[in-house]
């Protein structure tokens, strides 16, 4: 259990003199669900962006399974097995729902580039079966051939989750997976994430909703003002007075 998969070591990041992240030191262990919580503007999204190569840290580095991620291109980081699900759904609106999931599966199978222009996409039966299986699990199985742009916002988020899961990631980074969802959708997503948790996939979740955090997380890091102020199990975090002050005080659980 103590096998560290993701190690964020001494990361600093500032925008125009404003310290977005300072002294961030974070370890995510294999198989755990690690939640990052914190008030708005605490630097949660910045931290996630540093992990997937969208932002380059000013100093420090992010190590995933012995590989230094800093300075790597987004696609290289993805190919290592680090997959991010975005807060505002990033999908392929003009492609069908099924194609939206088949594309990431092909990225996993064929690597970051393959000039297979003479094969038939339609003949990729295994890929399609896998994609439609995942989509059925997420309740999108009945509209495989529709354009992704026709989905509701909540369904788009679910589709993106399906895209992330389809790559069997070694580390899944979820940015507020239930934001903007209705209560029963939120519960369904929690159940789904619990199932994934049972499969042993390592996850980092950024979340506002305390209900989601406490029902899923094995460990929690609390971010405030660009620093990690507390790290521990849900019970430890609940009990920590600094957390109450920085975060829980404003939003009663």
């Amino acid at each position, binding site marked *: 259990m103590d096998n560290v998969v993701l190690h964020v070591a001494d990361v600093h990041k500032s925008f125009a003199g404003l310290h977005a992240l300072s002294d961030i030191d974070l370890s995510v262990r294999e198989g755990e669900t690690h939640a990052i919580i914190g008030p708005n503007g605490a630097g949660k999204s910045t931290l996630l962006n540093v992990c997937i190569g969208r932002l380059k840290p000013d100093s420090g580095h992010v190590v995933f399974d012995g590989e230094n991620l800093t300075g790597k291109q987004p696609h290289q980081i993805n190919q290592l097995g680090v997959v991010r699900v975005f807060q505002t759904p990033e999908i392929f609106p003009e*492609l069908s729902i099924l194609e939206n999931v088949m594309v990431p599966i092909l*990225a996993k199978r064929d690597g970051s580039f393959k000039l297979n222009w003479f094969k038939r996409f339609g003949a990729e039966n295994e890929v399609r079966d896998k994609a439609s299986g995942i989509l059925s699990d997420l309740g999108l199985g009945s509209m495989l*051939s529709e354009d992704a742009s026709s989905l509701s916002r909540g369904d788009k988020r679910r589709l993106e989750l399906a895209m992330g899961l389809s790559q069997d990631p070694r580390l899944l980074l979820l940015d507020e997976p239930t934001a903007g969802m209705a209560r029963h959708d939120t519960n369904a997503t929690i159940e789904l994430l619990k199932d994934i948790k049972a499969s042993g996939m390592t996850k980092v979740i950024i979340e506002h909703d305390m209900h989601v955090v406490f029902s899923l997380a094995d460990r929690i890091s609390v971010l405030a003002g660009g620093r990690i102020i507390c790290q521990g199990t849900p019970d430890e975090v609940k009990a920590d007075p600094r957390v109450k002050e920085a975060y829980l005080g404003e939003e009663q659980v």
Partner: protein
Amino acid sequence: MNKSSGLSDWVLFFGFAAVVLTMPLWLAPFGAAYPDLMQKFAIFGVFAIGFNILFGLTGYLSFGHAAFLGAGSYAAIWSYKALTMNVVPAILFAVIVAGIFAFLIGYVSLRRSGIYFSILTLAFAQMSYNLAYSVLTPITNGETGLQLTLADPRVLDAMVGIEATSSLPLPNFFGIITTGIPGFYFCATVLIIAFFISLRIARSPFGMMLKAIKSNQTRMAYTGFNTRPYLLWAFVISGMYAGLAGGLMAVTDPLAGAERMQWTASGEVVLMTILGGAGTLVGPVIGAAVIKYFENIFSAFNKAELQQIFSALPDGLENIVVSVASMFVGKGWHLTLGLLFMIVVIFLPGGIMEGVRRIGRLMGIGKKPETQPVSVANSQQGQANG
């Protein structure tokens, strides 16, 4: 379901091939069944198919594709001059040279996207055009254009004992002269092969990735794809198609001039693709044929003919109608082209194929649900062929 969609691709392919090869028959009633024009249909069809691989699939709008067409033409003529009058090496050279040229320009231009990409391609094409007229005269023969001469070495032809004696030799396909009707069939065959390849590309995982890049390029990177080589290959393939088209021009008429590289020529292929329907498979070919057909018909009219057509009208009215109509024909056919361009972009952004699809939908309202295919391959095909 897969089999059936594979099958429908074959139906599309053989249907396309049949329509192209029977052009001399069904174009006759339109007065368009003469070799020169049909060759143009085929050649610009190839050009537009290639352009569509880049613009239709990836959404990258190149304003410099004429440079590759021109490069292909020059390469083909040089093959005639230096090696042989056989068109096969000429076409191979055209494709290879255009491919290398496209690789160099694409490698640099694809570092930017959006309008910056368009401007970069335009800048490179204009540089090529200007240089072809000035400094590169030893290669391009400047304003006169590159032509064959009796004194050309034609090394391979000389080796097998073919010598040009009194008149200039003609391009040939292993002895068959490729002007006139045989030239059309040669171009038509190349067009069919080019269409087949583009069909395979559009249906392949590679083609799907290009469409995904068009849809959301940022997402592709976070999905684990390196988009640069995908785009570069699309650019190079599409440049090779342009080179092929340029080579075919040299097949039917062994002459190459720099005006083929001008940016208006690049604009023309954009128009063909948009008019037919960018992103569709047969649309660009239809667009190319429509434009070349109208160019031919409209530019052939003159005032006397117009007066004859409208002679039934009362004199005063006749003069007005004729003078208005004369703006659109003859040398003024570009006006018609511009108007067509605007009408299509304003009212039918999907091009002719979109129009066909809309009409089809109106006609088939009742039966649509049953015939709507569910499989992904079919729905994708629905998008691509209309």
